[in-house]
């Protein structure tokens, strides 16, 4: 598990650090224990269907070969479902840098979704954590909600099923808020420009303020 997280961190540093002065703060995947319930549900469903087919093809009508065919079909479907669950979990993660927050959700053959919040375009007003349910309380798994004020509306960015939500919240508060303040005060080094998107325009543009020397007419 540690090796997987290290690989994710390295990949995030290589692929998602794109803006000037950007530093990686946090890379987080959903806690792997959240996989247990869907895995359990899939296995129980497989057992249930096997029982039904056993009742129908062995006890009711005696067709052992049909039962074997049903059994291997169930095995193939279950194996595929478990693999898909694992892959969907693996390709869903959050990246927090001092310039942006990303949620990457990739389900091969189905969807690819990258949610991005550029922190220099919004103001982070709240960071809340929440733990619901007995199991989550025992495992210390919960959600972290970050609320941003945008020019037109408020927007929430939710990190779901994160391990140690209080700890992550505290870390985000201390690191991220400081980074945003630094950015607001213009104390970042090597940053002359900013990202901007006009209303109705789908693409972000990087703009820089040019320092123009005042023109002095020569006499």
């Amino acid at each position, binding site marked *: 598990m540690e090796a997987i997280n290290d690989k*994710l961190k390295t990949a995030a540093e290589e692929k998602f650090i794109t803006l000037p002065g950007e530093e990686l703060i946090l890379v987080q995947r959903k806690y792997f224990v959240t996989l247990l319930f869907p895995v359990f549900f899939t296995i129980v469903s497989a057992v249930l269907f096997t029982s039904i087919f056993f009742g129908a093809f062995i006890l009711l009508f005696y067709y052992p070969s049909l039962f074997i065919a*049903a059994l291997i079909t169930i095995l193939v479907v279950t194996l595929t479902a478990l693999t898909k669950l694992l892959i969907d979990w*693996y390709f869903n993660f959050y990246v927090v840098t001092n310039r942006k927050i990303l949620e990457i959700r990739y389900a091969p053959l189905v969807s690819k979704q990258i949610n991005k919040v550029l922190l220099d375009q919004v103001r982070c007003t709240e960071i809340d954590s929440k733990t619901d349910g007995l199991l989550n309380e025992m495992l210390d798994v919960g959600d972290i909600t970050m609320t941003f004020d945008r020019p037109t509306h408020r927007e929430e960015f939710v990190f779901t099923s994160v391990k140690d939500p209080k700890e992550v919240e505290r870390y985000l508060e201390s690191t991220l808020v400081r980074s945003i303040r630094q950015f607001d005060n213009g104390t970042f080094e090597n940053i002359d420009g900013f990202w901007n998107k006009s209303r109705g325009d789908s693409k972000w543009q990087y703009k820089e303020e040019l320092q123009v020397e005042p023109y002095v007419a020569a006499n």
Partner: protein
Amino acid sequence: MEYLKLTLYLLFLATIGFMLIYNWLYLVRIKTSDNKIGISAPNFIKTLLSASITVSIIAFFFVVLMVVLTSIGINSSDFSSAIIFPQM
């Protein structure tokens, strides 16, 4: 009754065939995930998918055999019961 059995075999065959194609496409897609989102899939996921494909291929040919035997009139239950459920 033989038609019902054949229909069920074909239903299982279609399901296994679909899973086989799905897993194969999944594996191909996973191998290009590095270009898609910047994170490559670990080896254990590729191994799991390869195992799923192997099981699907074996299952596919097994069910094809059952369909052939049923369609030519050989009662496949006879040898299945002898091998798998000898006590019943």
